[in-house]
């Protein structure tokens, strides 16, 4: 493969790069835009905002989602907020500070130019959302309110109660609806994209399975945008929705799109602990709760043992006997350290025997102090819906008892490698939002996922896609009765039929759970070379068992949830292997990736900038062949990578 160009303009200064780039890329005239078709896969914040914005510009857009409505994409579950460098709070925020905190939060494993651009467009997102009628929280003077989030020294997070993702998604869903009404977007719901069709080296369409009829359908376009989200469900238990999957992105990888940093996974510190074997997913409790909640475990081991046996009420433990371990270890940031740091600290306490639930895998998040200081009403107004959710799940009232929380898989920083235009290494194939690898490095800061999804969809892709499409104005509408589409459809049909015809004894969920255990045990919060090698062996065993003993019941060409799951699990098994290889290659700790071989004396992640200051880019080499590792070197000219400290 030729040298891969990230297309970041070299000569302008950091703060001028995006303006310079925009001024020098191709633009498509309004008359030509309507002759060009774009497919958008996924309708979350990234896909929804991109689809609406592209249709407003005049392109003909088709959107695909597996859900029954674009409004249900999992962006909807984001709770806490969205960052922007508005500096409305007068606390010395700026584009540079947002950039700096984001790149530091990502443990210096993201590109300077991308992160700076993200910070630069952040303010326009808030303006756009307000114009859409999103009911952000406001002060009594009528102006927008802000709250604090982890890893930041300023208050820059805009929010709509604990439902910010929902409100932002309904905003771009509304913008999509307006374009659907005008005929500029065709929305295909209950459709799962399984194949990216390549014609003459360019992405020219997709094969989608209609989940209602079970039939495969063909769609052509001049460009394809992957906004299909992250791959956290490879762990089975995660905060992702049940249907979240990697399949479209994985097919893109097999078609030549490089996969960036697959081992970078975010483990969120404040989730509701696992309750038992029947658990199907984990529920997040927003990071915003750490604004007012204090995290603790008992100081005395005997208290922890009593708590584990249910013999002690946590309210009976005095303040002197409580170990507020985040405040103790990180006095500067306290309870608001970044997610990777807070997760590791919780694991450290629980591994040392101080866990507070029967499995010993939980810590307390206590609102007693905030309620005493501000009153129940204020706390209810800030977090009412989260407290209600906690009580419904656990049958425990968090106004009177501390919440129990534990880290869980939440977000994937890795994803398809993209250049500065958000294009993958397949011409005409773009990747935006969580599906790409670009902006969060090795750890994402809270309230930055919403920012990135909307930045990509509203303000970056609509410009950069023009650079590619301006060279396609002579290309007629893509026909789907060609050999490329015939072959693609046949390939997918054969693949699904093969799974269906195994007729074994074990359900797709059985294999998914098995895979999840291996992932959590060996590629979870702590990783080492020995464990990763063992994981590779175990994943290969699951893979073999899957292809021998899978059972898919139901009809092949009909609505068949089991067949959907089988395809997704097959892709997750293959992805798991790539994650293990990537984690094995990266013998350093950075952000959410913790190699136990590389830890500082006081237990913090120890980066190795000499050997690992790169983005890993994995290239698919074919079935049963080892993928090849390529590297994009990361250079820092505007910030100095140092050992991250939140003390």
């Amino acid at each position, binding site marked *: 493969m030729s040298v891969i160009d990230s297309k970041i303009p070299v000569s302008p200064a950091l703060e001028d790069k995006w303006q310079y780039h925009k001024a020098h890329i191709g633009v498509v005239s309004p008359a030509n835009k309507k002759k060009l078709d774009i497919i958008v896969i996924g309708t979350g914040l990234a896909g929804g905002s991109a689809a609406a914005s592209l249709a407003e510009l005049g392109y003909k857009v088709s959107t695909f989602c597996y*859900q029954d409505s674009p409004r249900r994409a999992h962006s*909807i579950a984001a709770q806490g907020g969205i960052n922007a460098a508005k500096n409305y709070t007068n606390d010395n925020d700026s584009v540079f500070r947002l950039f700096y905190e984001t790149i530091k939060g990502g443990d210096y494993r993201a590109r300077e130019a991308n992160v700076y651009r993200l910070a630069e467009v952040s303010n326009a997102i808030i303006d756009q959302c*307000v114009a859409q009628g999103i009911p952000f929280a406001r002060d009594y003077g009528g102006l927008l309110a802000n709250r604090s989030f982890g890893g930041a020294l300023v208050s820059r997070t805009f929010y709509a109660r604990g439902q910010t993702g929902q409100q932002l998604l309904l905003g771009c869903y509304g913008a999509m609806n307006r374009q659907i009404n005008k005929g500029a977007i065709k929305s295909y719901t209950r459709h799962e994209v399984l194949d990216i069709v390549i014609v003459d080296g360019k992405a020219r369409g997709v094969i989608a399975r209609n989940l209602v009829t079970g039939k495969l359908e063909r769609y052509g376009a001049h460009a394809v945008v992957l906004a299909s989200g992250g791959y956290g469900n490879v762990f089975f238990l995660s905060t992702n929705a049940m249907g979240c999957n990697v399949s479209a992105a994985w097919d893109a990888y097999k078609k030549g799109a490089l996969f960036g940093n697959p081992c970078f996974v975010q483990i969120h510190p404040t989730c509701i602990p696992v309750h038992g074997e029947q658990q*199907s997913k984990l529920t997040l409790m927003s990071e915003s709760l750490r604004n007012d909640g204090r995290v603790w475990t008992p100081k005395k081991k005997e208290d922890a043992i009593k708590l584990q046996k249910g013999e002690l009420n946590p309210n009976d433990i005095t303040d002197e006997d409580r170990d507020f371990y985040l405040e103790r270890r990180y006095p500067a940031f306290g309870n608001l350290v970044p997610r990777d740091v807070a997760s590791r600290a919780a694991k450290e306490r629980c591994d040392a025997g101080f866990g507070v639930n029967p499995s010993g895998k939980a810590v307390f998040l206590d609102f007693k102090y905030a309620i005493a200081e501000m009153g129940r009403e204020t706390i209810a107004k800030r977090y009412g819906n989260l407290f209600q959710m906690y009580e419904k799940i656990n049958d425990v009232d968090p106004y009177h008892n501390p919440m129990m929380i534990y880290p869980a898989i939440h977000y994937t920083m890795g994803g398809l490698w993209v250049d500065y235009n958000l294009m993958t290494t397949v011409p005409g194939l773009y990747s935006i939002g969580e599906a790409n690898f670009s902006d969060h490095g090795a750890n994402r800061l809270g309230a930055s996922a919403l920012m990135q999804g909307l930045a990509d969809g509203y303000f970056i892709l609509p410009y950069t896609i023009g650079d590619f499409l301006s060279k396609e104005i002579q290309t007629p509408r893509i026909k789907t009765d060609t050999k490329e589409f015939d072959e693609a459809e046949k390939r997918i049909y054969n693949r699904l039929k093969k799974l269906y015809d195994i007729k074994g004894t074990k359900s797709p969920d059985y294999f998914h759970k098995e895979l999840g255990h291996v992932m959590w045990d060996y590629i979870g919060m702590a990783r080492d070379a020995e464990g990763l090698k063992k994981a590779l062996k175990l994943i290969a065993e699951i893979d073999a068992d899957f292809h021998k003993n899978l059972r898919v019941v139901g009809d092949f060409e009909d609505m068949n949830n089991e067949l959907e799951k089988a395809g997704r699990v097959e892709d997750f098994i293959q992805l798991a292997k790539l994650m293990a290889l990537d984690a094995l290659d990266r013998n350093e700790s950075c952000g959410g990736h913790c190699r136990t071989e590389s830890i500082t004396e006081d237990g913090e992640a120890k980066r190795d900038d000499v050997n690992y200051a790169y983005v890993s880019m994995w290239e698919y080499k074919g079935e049963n062949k080892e993928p090849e590792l390529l590297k994009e070197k990361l250079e820092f000219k505007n910030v100095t990578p140092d050992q991250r400290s939140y003390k």
Partner: protein
Amino acid sequence: MADIILKNLTLKIWRQKNAKTKGKFETYKIHNISQGSSFLEMLDVLNEQLVSENKEPVAFDHDCREGICGTCSMFVDGHAHGPDTEVTTCQLHMRKFNEGATITIEPWRVGAFPVIKDLIVDRSAYDKILQAGGYTSVNTGGVPDANSIPISNDNAEEAMDAASCIGCGACAATCKNSSAMLFVAAKVSQLALLPQGKIEAARRAKSMVAKMDELGFGGCTNTGACQMECPKSISIEHIARLNREFLKAKFKD
């Protein structure tokens, strides 16, 4: 938390191959369900049991499993989202059921939401209503600074109450007239309360109500059942605001 196990449960579940065939209730026995499990996790256990018997699992809609996406849609023991208040089915927990209980599970019964399979219905009618006007007509870019128009805290809060609608369909499924008024009112009211949405409030109300009628939803007779079953407790006061906006539009005609 002590983990109490429900040893025996009986499930009566609506099974229907597709929209064209007739459905019927099937009875299943299920054992050893943790009261800490969610209702949908209980159905997962049933489905694994069915797969092990080489039978087709029960098809049901679900996704986020944290009460916000609005995908899960089922009638449990005569209630939309089951016998708990302010929850979706995914947030309903088995501690609401007793040992030996018989639980009846049906899809939404609304003419405008035809059954696709088993417990899954087609709610695209709700999307179509919003496509008719559930937005502010602004393009991306070129909008004023977010703080250029102050909005009173009360209005912002009330708009947020309305905006918390998850579009699950429980309101129409509960209403004896299969009316979608609470759903329509939530969007109309949210946007009418904010200066950005007020500009086209009357027009919006008119076109969304027209679409609702066209799709075959019934009229509202103010029984208030919808707000009782709404998992997000959306108040029927929003219906009053919808009616005001609708009348304004009529006077203009």
